[in-house]
């Protein structure tokens, strides 16, 4: 079973990398981009029996820094 963890900066936390990407997009002539936020995607290949609360525990203890980041878990049941 596979799961994906999306780690994103909390709303309101300054994202210098997102800002730089935004500027670069504008520099390439892409107009109409209002804002850019950069985050991380972590893919987990899990043994059977690992439940959602286990993954949440992994997120809280290591994968995300909950001072500044949110996380979202997406399970890929057939992967």
């Amino acid at each position, binding site marked *: 079973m596979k799961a994906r963890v999306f780690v994103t900066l909390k709303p309101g*936390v*300054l994202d*210098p*990398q997102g800002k*730089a990407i935004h500027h670069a997009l504008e520099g390439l002539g892409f107009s109409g981009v209002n804002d850019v936020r950069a985050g991380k995607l972590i893919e987990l290949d899990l043994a059977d029996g690992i439940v959602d609360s286990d993954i949440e525990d992994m997120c809280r*203890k*290591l*994968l995300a*820094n909950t*001072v*500044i980041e949110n996380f979202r878990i997406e399970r890929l049941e057939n992967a």
Partner: protein
Amino acid sequence: MKSAVIVFPGSNCDRDIAVALEQVTGRKPAMVWHKDTELPEGTDFIALPGGFSYGDYLRSGAMAARSPIMQAVKDATARGVPLIGICNGFQVLTEAGLLPGALMRNAGLSFVCRPVPLKVENSQSLFTSAYDSGETVVFPVAHHDGNYQADQDTLDRLEDEGRVAFRYLDEVNGSARRIAGILNDAGNVLGLMPHPERVVEPAHGSIDGRRLFEGLLESVA
């Protein structure tokens, strides 16, 4: 003073802090590998050095904060043993939950490497007793992730409780309220981005950092 320097894979200021501590205290610190689970008997000061532990993977300091030695470090600080985290050491302290807030990518995105003037905000701490409050000192910085951020309540509490130890005089990395170094609520843990251990002898061009270790020695001894 019986000090211990924790060494992580990717630490690169461990020797600098060891030399500074030996010069000031007259005693070589124990170099403790991150995989150890105990500090040497009688350790009365701990340093987390600068560097790029684990190549800054995931987040700066994230891996080091979960390494085996950190439980012993947490236990020691809970008993009141003084601990300093410099640069990557500061990042490890926030990741380990020993200090509030987080150190994010510099607002200008560039790695910043130069001497910067700092204001000593609190000269009453274990670490700053040899400085005068309001005094300006110059320590070098060398970091990519030194942009200190915390929520407004935390920032207000740090200010009200005198836990901002050092503040940048000028804009350096985007840190909230130009915070360069903070203390924990008990006052025995200091994290700071600038490097006092790099300005301890005249050949370094300045000895502004030396008094931090001298003050500490006086407090601990």
